[in-house]
């Protein structure tokens, strides 16, 4: 069975701030089912910028991305990619 969750580390300087959270939310809103961001057992709905911000993810935070359904695998991969490239903010 394909894994439905992936661990990533926030690498961009500013952490998960409004702009990066907006990018995640834009992607997550295209999903068929819920997409989650989990940090220290706190869970946020990835389609909500505000919910993401409440996790207070600074640079270096370890977080888990999770989808509820396999059909959203592309969404998960795409989101992971955003994290890995630092949301295109790295110089």
């Amino acid at each position, binding site marked *: 069975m394909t894994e439905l969750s992936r661990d990533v580390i926030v690498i961009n300087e*500013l952490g998960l701030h409004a*702009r990066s959270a*907006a990018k995640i939310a834009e992607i997550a*809103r295209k999903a068929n089912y819920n997409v989650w961001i989990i940090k220290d057992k706190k869970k946020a709905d990835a389609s909500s*910028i*505000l*919910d993401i*911000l*409440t996790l*207070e993810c600074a640079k270096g935070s370890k977080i888990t991305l999770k989808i509820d359904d396999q059909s959203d695998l592309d969404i998960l991969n795409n989101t992971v990619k955003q994290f890995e490239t630092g949301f295109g903010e790295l110089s």
Partner: protein
Amino acid sequence: MTDTGSREIILTGINVSPGICIGKAYLVDIEGVDVVKKYFISEDDVQDEIKRFKSAVNKAKQQMLTIITNAPEELRDHTYILETHKTLLKDKMLYGRTIETIKNEKVNAEWALKKVVSDVKSMFKNMSDSYLKERATDIVYVSDRIMRNLVGAESEKIADIDKRVILVANDLSPAEASQINLERIKGFVTDRGGKTSHTSIIARTLEIPAVMGLGNATNIIKNDNLIIIDGTVGTVIIHPTEETLLEYGVRSAKYEELKAAITRDSYLQAETADGFQLKVMGNIELPEEVVSVIDYGGDGIGLYRTEFQYLSSPILPKEYELFDKYKDVVEVIAPKPVTIRTLDINGDKAFSNNPDYMEANPALGLRAIRYCLKNPDVFRTQLRAILRAAAFGNVRILIPMISSYEEVLETKRILDEVADALDKEGTLFNRNVELGIMIEVPSAVIIADILAGEVDFFSLGTNDLIQYSLAIDRGNRNVAHLYHSLHPAIIRMIKQLADVARNKGIKLFMCGEMASDPINLPILLGLGIDELSMNPQSIPAVKSMIRALKVEDARAFMKDVFKQNTASGVEELIRETYGSILFEKVYARRKAFGDRAQKNYYRKQKGQT
């Protein structure tokens, strides 16, 4: 900018809320600012209301798209923010929740949005990260846009205030003041109003500098004039010179520094040097003030005055309206306690529409519990709302103006009746609330041993107790100077209460002004008060003073206090014994600042003439 040639003008008014701000004036016309109306909608209209909200959001989205596409190349960086705002428009926590609120509470879209936004905003404001704290502004920006589309063209005014301004108005009604877009207001200036007006309470709550009672500020100040407000001394300076601007810039920074220093450790418990913890709570009047109790590190609400809802409307408030407000307060501060004082209204106010009803002596008239027992329906409605709100947190009930044993029994009987009724109806409520009485009438002190058997706590209302005991009306200039909280009679009364409370195993609180002045603390500590409640702004200074004291010393100190024959003798003794601590902890910083400001102000005035 056109008025650089104008002469500097200084106006003097009442200093209702401390602090300094410099900014552009924004004159509010009679309609007031951004007032959001609340009304209920019928089940049938819910879908239409949601549709109205959705179309306002869609319109906002279109507007933002237009702005983004029209943005010039050099502002590319800026459009990222707008993109974020565009995404925020449909955020579940904003969009989804507003729709849910319309559906569940059957309220109009504007009100639902306002409610949701204020929740989200306070969530962000409580975050430790300063970047995230600032995000509250984004939420306001986005919700404003939706709000403008909802209310239509009328609200063009809001669009005008997109810089931080100083509000200049003839007067602001409590409703207007409580709904002002605070992120955008630096300060208030009004022609009318004074220290106890609701607007000034709000200004203090929100820590916005304000000067009121200026008389004709609205005639002198023009829109966009550069003005300085010094809420600490009560001056407003119009067309300040470069020199004045510079001076106030420095002064404002100093003020912020001072405030930060006192507030910094206010979140910690107030524990004396020998390890005794004293709870320091906040007094509030408007539900909004609960936020400032939390901000100033209060351990709960020691006095929630409930008159406002009764006085702000010509008809009596409904149970659900009362419940709504109480629940708001209770939920926000839970699990810390909220002490709700039942209606302390006097007949005059209650019947303001009836000119035939005038009491010659309202302070000795039909007020507070006397009024409630005479109007049991009014009382029942309030008690129902309180018991229902109690299901959402930690609530205590406080009965004002008790002067006899029968009043307590009658109150308890009605309370039981109300609880039984709620139980039968199957309504959610909590009967398990502590019941206390205000001790503010001398007879209550004298029969405290009798009353103690019927209640869970006493709360000392020092303002009234002193007024009734010393027979002094503080509003009367001829005798006001005789009003003294350190009068030996008052100290003996408190001792008697403390002894009774200890023997009967009930708690003794204090919620009058006496609790908020650090100079009284050695005595309050020495007598054994369990909890103090005061205006939220006083909490940090009181906590800081408590930490410098020892209970053991304070108890021993009481022996000397009881040897004093006069109020001034007692005060002298406190200054002799605790002067260094008091001075260092509280007065030194406060006073040094005040004096300097005062001196500068006089210097300025002289230069003017």
